[in-house]
């Protein structure tokens, strides 16, 4: 067993313990203590949840709200949580369903409401304003371009392929975990992952090459 796997098991055990304790405290009506205990779970899963929500929503504010909703929902429905299932899986499922609902609502909204024009350059999103380890402006620009291309390519994938790719590749979930999270069977998960990578390669590696060739031809002619 690797260190990471061992840590995962320990984390899961801790999650189950915390979730059971919160459930018991809620049942006793000791809500303040239940919330205190629940804070452990929130602290442990918050970053990962925010990351997953951000990959789905591609919008910091919406991802933030989706994470909040998921934690509130999980707390209020903790009585329906079964200990045999890892809390992480149960919670991530709530989060993903919430994100998908939000995406549907957003698509509906965008169909009927004209988008607002972008504000001045100084009023960009909080996430965009936060700089990492202060890379050079050129690096920042290149990185932003690369990320935008990746986001556009991911957006072109079918929803299931996108979900499987994000959970498997970004979050490092095994096919069994992705199967538990998405409700797809394991072999379907593998097929979706394969197709997602193939399509992304076509869009991100082969397509720019085609674009470069077109540019070269233009220069020569």
């Amino acid at each position, binding site marked *: 067993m690797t260190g990471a796997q061992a840590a995962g098991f320990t984390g899961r055990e801790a999650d189950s313990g915390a979730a059971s304790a919160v459930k018991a405290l809620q049942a006793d009506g000791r*809500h303040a203590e239940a*919330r205190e205990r*629940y*804070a452990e779970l*929130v*602290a442990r899963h*918050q*970053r990962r949840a*925010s*990351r997953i929500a*951000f*990959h789905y929503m591609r919008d*910091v504010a919406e*991802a*933030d709200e989706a*994470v*909040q909703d998921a*934690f*509130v929902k999980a*707390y*209020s429905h903790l009585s329906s949580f079964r200990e045999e299932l890892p809390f992480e899986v149960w919670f991530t499922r709530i989060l993903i369903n919430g994100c998908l609902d939000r995406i549907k609502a957003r698509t509906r909204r965008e169909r009927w409401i004209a988008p607002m024009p972008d504000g001045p350059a100084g009023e960009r999103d*909080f*996430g*965009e304003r*936060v*700089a*990492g380890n202060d890379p050079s402006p050129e690096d920042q620009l290149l*990185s932003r371009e*690369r*990320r935008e291309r*990746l986001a556009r390519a991911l957006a072109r994938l079918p929803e299931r392929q996108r979900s499987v790719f*994000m959970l*498997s*590749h*970004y979050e490092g979930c*095994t*096919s069994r975990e*992705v199967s538990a999270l998405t409700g797809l069977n*394991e072999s379907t*998960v*593998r097929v979706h*992952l*394969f197709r997602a*990578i*193939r399509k*992304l*390669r076509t869009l*991100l*590696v082969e397509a720019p090459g085609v674009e470069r060739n077109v540019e070269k031809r233009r220069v020569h002619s």
Partner: protein
Amino acid sequence: MSILNRLRLTAHLDEAGLIAIWTDASTTGVRQLHPHLENCAACRTRFAELSSWLESVRIDARSEAHESFPAERLAAQQALIFRRLEAAERPARVIAFPRFAQPLTSRTSHASRWIAAAAAAGLIVGVGVGQLMDLRHSLARPQATQARLSPTVNAGRDARVQSLSAARDEAFLSELDATLSRASVPELRALDAFTPKADDQPR
């Protein structure tokens, strides 16, 4: 080893083959090298290139998410989550249906009833006083009538008053005449001569 298997091992892996190998390794978590990759350096290089590209995609995506959610944002998010949980657990505030607000309304109407009663009492008292005044006037009127009916008595009294004031006027005027005739200041005599007199005015 059969010729077919040997052919399969010697033929280079295409992109799909490399992705399939990577997918299997990724989803199962078992890193076993494909027999062809062990023998073919070119395919091994292409597989390494694919793996590093996928790794760079993963790092890019994760770092973007991390940058979007710095520690301060996560702290704020956590605070909001617990504020919402607290609010959800607090018993809901029940707004009383108007029917249940009856005591409050009745208290108000009690006061207003007193005000109305005082106003009515004031009106009644006012009307009563008005009536009494009217009655007094009507009682005083016969006396005036009586006075009109006996002029001789009043005439005698008026004559007495008139004679008294005439005597007083006469005394005043005579005193005035005496003062004028006694014009004894020599410096003012010339001025007096120039001053027109009431008696000089043509009639």
